């Protein structure tokens, strides 16, 4: 098993003829992901790589190909619009790789996705992979290995580092999900923890957080209350400087929360084994499994 994506994933690539979209569409096709459609307004009727039909709109793509999942590689200025379009067209799972989305766009896109019962992963995320089954996004398939560890992370390349550690030491993954580092994201740690908890194949969970916000603290509470499987965690940013801040609103709303120390303490209190460095992931998992 796996979470969110597997062999039944039928993918439409929004921005399939763009630089990033075409490169990664080929990578995903090579990995075995069922890429059933692409969308680029004005290129409807063409075929991508002589194989994948391209449509002007996601609605047409869904109608013609029964796509159930979408991945977004369009420029930041129109990425929110692509999210709206995917949700409006009945796509159930939307993965937005694009980085640099205005946060205020997300304040409007998130309730829209939510109202339609869809799930958004990202934006500004590497996507996800269920090794051996399906890969949606940009996580290099070559570093992953099918297995039983669930990985969820706010970062991109740091996730690769952790997956690399796991795979090279024989720990395959059920699914690896990069939820994205932006302030407003569609799928958070708790959503992924719940899915991994429900996935019978996943035996342990690796959770990679970073400074800023309180998602990790809430996730820790959730782990304490609900998760029976072993969880190993990491927090990046212990040495990061506190950002120069204008105004008082940030301090008022978040108080002193968001530091690495606070998050590590919350992890420890919740019984999460905390890595000091990425290379600790395998030794800690060994202890817990």
């Amino acid at each position, binding site marked *: 098993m796996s979470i969110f994506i597997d062999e039944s994933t039928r993918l439409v690539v929004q921005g399939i003829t763009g630089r990033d979209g075409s490169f990664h569409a080929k990578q995903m096709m090579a990995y075995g992901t069922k890429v059933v459609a692409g969308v680029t307004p004005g290129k409807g009727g063409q075929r991508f790589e002589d194989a994948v039909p391209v449509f002007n709109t996601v609605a047409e793509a869904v109608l013609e190909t029964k796509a159930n999942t979408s991945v977004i590689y369009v420029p930041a200025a129109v990425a929110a619009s692509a999210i709206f379009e995917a949700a409006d067209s009945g796509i159930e799972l939307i993965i937005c790789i694009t980085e640099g989305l205005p946060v205020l766009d997300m304040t409007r896109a998130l309730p829209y996705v939510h109202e339609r019962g869809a799930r958004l992963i990202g934006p500004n995320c590497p996507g996800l992979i269920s090794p051996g089954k399906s890969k949606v996004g940009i996580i290099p398939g070559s570093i992953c290995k099918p297995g039983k560890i669930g990985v969820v992370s706010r970062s991109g390349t740091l996730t690769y580092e952790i997956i690399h550690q796991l795979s090279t030491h024989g720990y395959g993954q059920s699914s690896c999900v990069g939820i994205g580092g932006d302030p*407003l994201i569609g799928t958070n740690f708790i959503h992924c923890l719940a899915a991994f908890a429900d996935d019978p194949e996943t035996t342990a969970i690796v959770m990679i957080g970073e400074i800023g*916000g309180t998602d990790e603290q809430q996730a820790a509470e959730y782990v304490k209350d609900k998760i029976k499987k072993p969880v190993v965690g990491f927090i990046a940013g212990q040495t990061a400087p506190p950002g120069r801040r204008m105004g008082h609103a940030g301090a008022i709303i978040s108080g002193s929360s968001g530091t690495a120390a606070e998050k590590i303490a919350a992890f420890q209190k919740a019984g999460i084994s905390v890595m000091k460095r990425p290379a600790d992931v395998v030794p800690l998992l060994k202890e817990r499994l």
Partner: protein
Amino acid sequence: MNLHEYQARDILRRHGIPVPPGDVATTPAEARALAEKLGGKVVVKAQVHAGGRGKAGGVKLAKTAAEAEANAKAILGMKIKGLTVQKILIAPAAEIASESYVGIIVDRASQRAVVMVSPAGGIDIEEVAATTPEKIHRLAVDPRYGLLAHQALGLGFKLYGDVKQARAAADIMQKLYGAFYAVGASLAEINPLVTTPDGSVQALDAKISIDDNELERRPDIAALRDTSAEAPEEVAARDAGLTFIKLEGNVGCCVNGAGLAMATMDLVKYYGGAPANFLDIGGSSNPQKVVSALRIITSDPNVKAILFNVFAGITRADDVANGIVQATTEFALKVPMVIRLIGTNEAIAVDILKKAGFSALTDMDDAVKQAVAKATGKAA
């Protein structure tokens, strides 16, 4: 991107929020002329992107135009938290009956813009929030409807018992919310929102920060950037498409991805070193970005060793390798460099580096240990 007070006041004014008169000056003579035009007592305020201007001596009252000129002379060129004052705001010294606080910020938890108000405004607002949180009232605004009239009025009554003042404050809040979305703000703050002895409600001081991701589609707002008020190396990094924050250590770090960059810095510290910077070359780097990154790192005299840590994915390892080689043809690195480079096109990259006389490691811990050793002069 942070705006200056005078820029924020302009935006508020354009959105119909009552703001006292006043304008910006860059020389003592201009300050004097503005003070004469305003007449009466004025306040001279340093325009820098830092809090605590008052305590640092960057805000001074002047009874006469001559005094305003003298104050301007004192404040212009002053350093506040490392930033040189290049602009000052000259505004009338308002008579104030009460000081409140109104702020809007995007809140991660509710995933909405949150309006915060407090009848106890002014410079101690953070202390108010910490010690008497019940004096801070918050409302997460549903972006589908905006800040509704009754919601704004409810907040207005938290500030003022008088219905006219409550309505005036509500109107200001709705306009501030409108401005927030219109300019693509991440923060908009009126502190203090004052009442004058005649009962009117005005925005005395304003702060607005813009979400950098909004700038591309808002050239008018992007044009407000004042690079003279920012650290030069950060300006250079941004121009090159890099995210860079200077620190005090001696290991210059060049990493792809913010999370890996932070983890790398943490590992530098773990092995006894100190990172000289945070530097993220971003997702789809090209060789030129790497050249710019090395130029910025090597311009820091504290840097004793350079650490590359790249896990190629969307970033291609060969692009990074080419950038490193190109940089060394353009300028001298002066300090030792340790390169860790794996992932997409790794083999091509290693080949490129080898031909140029560099070697690349594959393990992150090994690379960090070596870099720390080189920076500190101790054996790894």
